[in-house]
């Protein structure tokens, strides 16, 4: 199982457009990926409702986990995505 930790760079947190872009990127990997606060419960990262429901704010850290072929590469690309201020782009 692959795991990564990343701080949310988007100014408005993991909401709205950033959340939508993240969920779309997760779906594109085709892998079952989970996201949650470090040490907190993890939710299905393909669900925009669950991701937004976490209420993760700017600069908060989240933990991503994935299993299967290409899990490491998939998480690396998601970490890169969340490290950008998606709302400003």
């Amino acid at each position, binding site marked *: 199982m692959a795991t990564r930790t990343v701080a949310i760079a988007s100014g*408005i947190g993991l*909401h709205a457009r950033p959340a939508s872009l993240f*969920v779309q990127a997760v779906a594109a990997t085709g892998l079952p990926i989970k996201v949650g606060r470090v040490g907190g419960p993890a*939710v*299905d990262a*393909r669900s925009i*409702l669950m991701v*937004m429901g976490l*209420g993760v704010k700017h600069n908060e850290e989240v933990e991503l986990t994935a299993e299967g072929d290409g899990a490491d590469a998939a998480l690396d690309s998601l970490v890169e995505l969340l490290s950008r201020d998606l709302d400003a782009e």
Partner: protein
Amino acid sequence: MITGIGVSAGVAIAPIVKVSPPAGVDAAEAPTTDAAAAAAQVAQALADVAASLQARAAAAPEHSKAVLEAGAMMAADPGLQSSIEGELQAGKGVTAAVADAVGEYANMFLALGGYMAERVTDLFDVRDRAIARLRGLPEPGIPDFDTPSILVAHDLAPAETALLDPDLCAGIVTAAGGPTSHTAILAAQLGIPAVVQAAGIMDLDAGTVVAIDGSAGTVDVNPSEQAQAALLDRHQRRQAAISDSTAPGATKDGHPVALLANIGTVADARAAAALPVEGVGLFRTEFLFLDRDDAPSMAEQAATYGEVFEAFAGRKIVVRTLDAGADKPLRFADLGPEENPALGRRGLRLGMIREDLLDAQLRALAVAQKGTGADVWVMAPMVANVTEAKWFAAKVRAAGLPKAGVMIEIPAAAMRAQDILAEVDFASIGTNDLQQYTMAADRMAGELARLLHSWEPAVLDVIGAACVGAKANSKPIGVCGEAGGDPALALVLVGLGVTSLSMAPKKAPAVRTALALHTLEECQALAHVAAAAFTWEQARKAVLARANPVLADLI
């Protein structure tokens, strides 16, 4: 024939399209026994909703695309699907499972507050569409239509009317709503004939042809050929009676009554500026403040005001400072819920609590005024007494703005207009709110529409009192509610002493014509006749009986 209240003049004959209310949970549905089959049925409904929202997003204008796409994404959400499956396994029926699963997410979003709480509307929209599909009922909201049709609804929400295409919407009829409801104001702005309070209109089937008269408030179902001809004849008489003069508003004997436009956006300003109006009598500034997380900066406000002022260069512009409160809440100035928002911390009351907002707005208006050299008059909404009027006028003058005024919407301010006008340069009567406060009847409550007629003699008395106070100070007093756009009532208002009338700009030609047919003395006699009546019906009838007969063709 269905009779309601005509709120936007004009006639239309067309088939109806119906705005369906949400179907809601099917109280009679069977509990789920085969969870897998039920889950597949719900998944199909949600997939259909997602596909239809996605298709609408593709065709939608840029500003509404994002909302539709977000809805499509929610409908296709695997998290929602698995929550629904959980409810189905617990034995709930299909529509109850959808409603309850959505309800849980809604509560979660509401608890997060702010931006997330507002997404609840989108979530409920997905729920209502999915449930409608599961029950085999029409999806809620305005259906797509591509031939001119008359829109029929219980009532219309602002979000629904924002998407209306005025070229296809030939008319609007609602079962609820009142003369000052959102539907009425929007229809008048777009120049679409409209009737509200049309009892039984929702019983008609979609596609039924109706003929509506937005002045008389009548809806003729399956009209005969003669009835259609008579309606069109009436419409032609009206068009013929309206003079094509574009001269400044004045009575027959030359007493000037400025005809002004009510506007609420930069686009409104540009559209109205092309019409023969003498300026803006009410520039509502709320659009800059609603639907956002932070207050607009001084610079952003100044730039927007500047655009409006430029559109009306050389003409007068009356600006109303921010009119928000519990009914139109601002995310960045939420004072919390109130038991009775109409009587709460709204209008200038909010400005006195959040002085920073008012100061920034006045500074921005001053910057835009100096930049454009426009003839800017600034007034405060919901002023109750002299103390408030003085406080506001001092602020306006300190900001370097030339004219300070007040809205007269509270009967107390009308009764003491003489004291208030001594402190300010002008006043403008907001008849919509003045009616609701005079009659103690919520203007949003359609069932109370019978108490909310602008012709109500008591309301005319209160307006008259305000005019007396203005006259004693030789100060101008305008009307900027819907009443000012009624050609017959306009005569009465002028007779009472009103010096300018502001309205949806499409109403100005009929009002200009009515004024030009009567002298000031005749208007005063009509005001007297109206005030002498016992009921609003009598007041209106008596005025029409005494006025120039052409007036009957104008309304």
